[in-house]
């Protein structure tokens, strides 16, 4: 009985002392940054996720204000990090752009999201 109470006590302590951790691929950082206004047109988007992602089952699309795609469709992982995806862009003019990402983390969980950035010289 003492052992059972001990197990309960350890579990209770652990959950009371709990802290958050990351276990799904969410966007950790982006270049250009979320909601940012940049002066020069970027040639690519760099997305960094909280986990390693499966590029073969991930997709990133960049659209202009009219909904037209401005990425080249040649997204690829960064050479030195499985957490990063690089999305080459066509030459883009001033305006607001939406980045839509759908990624699969290596534990096969899917996440998705979007954000905008603006080019204003």
């Amino acid at each position, binding site marked *: 009985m003492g*052992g059972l109470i001990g197990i309960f006590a350890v*579990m209770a302590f652990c959950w009371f002392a709990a802290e958050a951790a990351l276990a799904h691929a969410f966007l950790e950082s982006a270049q250009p940054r979320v909601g940012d206004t940049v002066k020069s047109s970027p040639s690519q988007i760099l997305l960094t996720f909280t986990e390693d992602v499966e590029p073969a089952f991930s997709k990133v699309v960049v659209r202009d204000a009219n909904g037209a795609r401005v990425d080249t469709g040649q997204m690829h992982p960064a050479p030195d990090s499985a957490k990063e995806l690089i999305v080459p862009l066509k030459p883009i003019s001033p305006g607001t752009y939406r980045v839509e990402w759908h990624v699969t983390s290596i534990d096969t969980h899917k996440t998705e999201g979007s954000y905008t950035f603006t080019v204003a010289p």
Partner: protein
Amino acid sequence: MNAMAGAALAFDLGPRALIIALVRGMSVAAAFSLLGTLVFAIVLLPMIMPTAPAPVADLHHPVLRRLLWISISVSGSALLAWLVLEAADLAEAESIGQAFATVPKVLLVTVFGHVIALQLLMLAAATLILAGLRQRWGYILAAAFAAILVALEAGHTHALAMHFGPSFLLASQVAHLLAGAVWLGGLLPLLLFVHALPVYSGAKLAWRFSPIGAGCVLALATTASYQGWVLVGGLRGLSTTAYGLMALVKISLFFALLCFAAINRFYFTPALSGGRAEIAKSRIVFSIGVEAGLGLCIVLAAGVLSTLPPGMHMNMEMFRESVRYARLFP
């Protein structure tokens, strides 16, 4: 601006995800059964051989061999089914043909595919050894491959995705899986042999199984607590998210299982040596059967749990606290 604006989990536990989770649970249960039965045969059977009639407590007893082959068959079938279902889900396939066409790609380019391929390899190695080598050391070698098969399951969990490479959480997952396999996987052979053996030998077997079970329970409780600490997202995550609620279901089943184990250990097993041994034997057989059934439910619940997004993500307020604002926003 809200850090989670436009971001969402694309996951929902619809019928397809539930089937994947249950198939995954079946593959784990069968791998547990394989390893648990092998450990039972290697560690426990030799302890009672001097007292049990030789044909009954033999490594080549038909019941033991049948249990091993059933475990292997279910494990292999479930792993293959999981591979196809996961491929269909990843490719968002609309036909069975499309799902099968995606399988090679999944096997070649994804971590999930690599781990499944390794698991199938370990299962094949254990199968070949059991088919070809019938000596005790053949069982030991097969158990080693079965242990790797079980440990590789950690490669499908949140632990590896959170940190690709060795980590304390990954080690905790491996220990959790191995302890679960030895305890829960050993229940079915225990049930069959306690039923088949004379009362005295059955009692001895049940006594010998108790310390192994107790050690596994301790390992399971310790590792589950650590994983709960990291993954559930605190008491708030436990009570307000699907992941937390499923974790509660698993914990409840675990404590129900502990109760049956305690009844077996402190009441039925001593009764096997008493005056009404035959009645005690039928009761302990029933009780171990319930234990095994609860064990299967726990493994299936764990399959669903592994498919659900961890609690701290579903609890958005908590997730916002963990997002690194400075790097996301200008």
